[in-house]
């Protein structure tokens, strides 16, 4: 009997869990929709800025600008962008491992800038130099945060504290797919578009002046884009994780219901048997 009650309790518990994961999935899905549209909305600006910056960087004196000029790399900074919360499948773990791999592989001094509580929780306990951290970004990484972060990164790069800055985040491909990746932020890589049409532009003010104005913006928008993509990836990972959790609990409920029925049937059979034997015994006596 206790077995039956036990199974019944478990079914109820799992069905409660299923409700919760189902609700979390719906929440993640609706937030994902918004995050996704923000990613799309931000892309034209990022593209255009990259286009203009790329074209300008080809001009001869661009290579000497401090944000572009590459130097011998003695120390690298990695910017890890992860979530503040868990329950998103392997999303956070994948990015953290990628970062750790990078830190170990390089074997040279490196600093870490962490965005997202999960990353901070992990790396705070390790012997990694954390240059800066940001937590509680919320659902809408706003532009002013991206600007501040970009400015900090440019500062530590320009002051010579580090010689390279890389972003580590999950690129958002679709609701079912994101790719954790390492992307160079500084020094700014100039696309090698040799041979493409070099239009003779009129610059106002002179090219280097324009370039000096556009490069920081380019950095900002790249950071902004990374934050948006990371957020969309996180939400999509959470949605997928919660969906499979919901499915798994449905499966478990099915199995438990089956064993519940079996146990109930067995109990009834035993009872019947008892009644029958009892009756038989009485008849024999009489």
């Amino acid at each position, binding site marked *: 009997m206790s077995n039956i009650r036990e199974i019944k309790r478990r079914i109820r518990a799992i069905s409660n869990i299923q409700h919760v994961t189902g609700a979390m999935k719906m929440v993640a899905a609706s937030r994902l929709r918004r995050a996704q549209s*923000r990613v799309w*909305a931000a892309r034209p600006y990022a593209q255009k800025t990259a286009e*203009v910056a790329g074209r300008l960087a080809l001009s001869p004196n661009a290579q000497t600008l401090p944000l572009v000029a590459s130097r011998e790399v003695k120390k690298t900074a990695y910017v890890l962008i992860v979530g503040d919360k868990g329950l998103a499948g392997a999303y956070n773990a994948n990015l953290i491992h990628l970062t750790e791999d990078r830190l170990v592989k390089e074997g040279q001094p490196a600093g870490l800038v962490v965005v997202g509580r999960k990353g901070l929780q992990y790396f705070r306990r390790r012997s990694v130099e954390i240059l800066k951290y940001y937590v509680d970004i919320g659902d809408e990484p706003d532009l002013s945060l991206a600007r501040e972060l970009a400015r900090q990164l440019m500062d530590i790069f320009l002051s010579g504290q580090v010689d390279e800055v890389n972003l580590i985040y999950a690129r958002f491909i679709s609701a079912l797919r994101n790719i954790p990746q390492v992307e160079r932020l500084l020094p700014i890589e100039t696309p090698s578009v040799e041979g493409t049409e070099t239009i003779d532009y009129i610059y106002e003010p002179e090219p280097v002046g324009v370039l000096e104005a556009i490069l920081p913006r380019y950095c900002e928008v790249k950071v902004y884009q990374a934050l948006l993509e990371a957020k969309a990836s996180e939400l999509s990972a959470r949605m997928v994780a919660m969906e499979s959790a919901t499915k798994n609990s449905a499966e478990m409920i099915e199995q438990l219901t089956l064993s519940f029925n079996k146990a109930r049937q067995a109990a009834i059979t035993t009872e019947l048997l008892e009644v029958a034997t009892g009756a038989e015994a009485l008849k024999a006596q009489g």
Partner: protein
Amino acid sequence: MSTSRFEVVTPQRRILAEEVESVIAPGAEGYLGVLPRHAPLLTILKPGVVFFRKVGGKTECMAVSGGLLEAGPDKVIILADTAELSWEIDVERARRAKERAEKRLRERYAGLDVARAEFALQRSLARLKAAEGS
């Protein structure tokens, strides 16, 4: 009359994409007008009002708080830090921002970031002007 494709994008979204007959924008070295078949040009924008004449002759305007303008023979692209079409502007908010900036510049307390206050003043003036011009 030929037209240009006029696009305004900010980091958050695309504000506008339309065929226009002319664009007037606050360039680094003063306001400049761009007509179709303009020579390739790239300029920094200051905070100010951008006027554009749509096909058919209706002129509209928007406030930008700085950015870049790229002009080509058949297109004009503005990469704005922020941009608001004249009818989207919150006039009350812009007026408050203007008063705040003016007050700061008048009082000049120690530690005031003058450049920033001036920039804020220019931005709010651009907004008010654009809102009026509609």
